[in-house]
């Protein structure tokens, strides 16, 4: 790799996930650039948790995220549309029934 090509290389992009408190799941907070995972965690601390927003950080290099295609939304989610019997409110039961 030539010196010039190297100097043009950007630090890779990372996606940041933060657990806001114990017992909750990690949620996507945003992204940032860092040379490696250690630096990504340190940068995420500075960029996304300046006001006690988190107690745990995950970072994943963005290139490893695989996402569904928005154009496939119909095919992917349509089968759930007509199965409302999966929801408890689908069932008509007497009002006097309790604890259910």
């Amino acid at each position, binding site marked *: 790799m030539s010196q010039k090509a190297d100097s043009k290389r*950007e*630090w890779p992009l990372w996606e940041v996930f933060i657990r806001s408190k114990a017992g909750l799941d990690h949620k996507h907070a945003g992204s940032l650039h860092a040379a*490696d995972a250690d630096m990504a965690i340190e940068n995420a601390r500075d960029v996304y948790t300046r006001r006690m927003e988190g107690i745990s950080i995950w970072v994943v290099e963005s290139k490893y995220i695989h996402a569904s295609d*928005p154009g496939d939304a119909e095919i992917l989610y349509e089968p759930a549309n007509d199965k409302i019997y999966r929801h408890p409110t689908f069932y008509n039961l007497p009002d006097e029934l309790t604890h259910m």
Partner: protein
Amino acid sequence: MTVHSFQEHFDEKMDKDQAIEAKDWMPDDYRKTLIRQIAQHAHSEIVGMLPEGNWITRAPNLRRKAILLAKVQDEAGHGLYLYSAAESLGISRDDMMEQLHSGKQKYSSIFNYPTISWADMGAVGWLVDGAAIMNQVPLCRTSYGPYARAMVRICKEESFHQRQGYEIMLTLANGTEVQKKMAQDSLNRWWWPSLMMFGPPDADSPHTEQSMRWRIKRFTNDELRQRFVDVTVEQARILGLTIPDKDLKWNEATGHYDFGTPDWNEFYNILKGNGPCNKERLDTRRKAWEEGQWVREAALAYSDKRRQRKEKKAA
């Protein structure tokens, strides 16, 4: 789907107030306009660190110094949220840096004014951040998801910026005669540039209609400017300071304040690069970028070395 139906699908989402996400189809002009607006916004946050960085070492006490440091750090963070949002539209971070340094992409003209007294830290927080908040709050509901989410985060943090600025003004305004004079002088210098932050009058703002349709903009420049004047007049009264506009007067009929016209020649002149600090700001950014080049390279080389060492061990 044909291109036509992609467009129809997009229009339908606009009509229904639905969000557009990074992988969704979008018209080229929408993408280009967003990149320009988000990059300009990000650059403004980063260049905006400079007028305040100017006072960190000279803050009057430790409390003010710690607060100013935290505020400038927030602005760095805001710049980073926005750069990431712009990158999701397909422009690289380095490209944005290059376009800032070459002058192709702009940053807010307000940061081309100097901060010559401590009171300016108060006026910048109160007026400049106040005007920015007025611009930004409606953008929390803008159509592009990553931009809207960045704006939500930014708006939550900006409120502290404005309040700390107002507190500086309050302290000075209730201080000695000299301190009060300093606060008034600062208001005199920052008032008109703050009004210009909302952009040219609607009649001279050709893109407003398209941007409103795309929900990249939610109120016109003049609407936001009026709103800013209406709330700020009362805030100045509490400080006991005088807004430097002889045409400022309550209008019973409209329920708003009437006010004078900013010097738009000054605005366009600064936009062209002829403001008091344009050169200094860009030179500072370029220098930081060039002198940081070896750090960026060294960090990559270090991570490459560590990875290779790990792979060797595993082999």
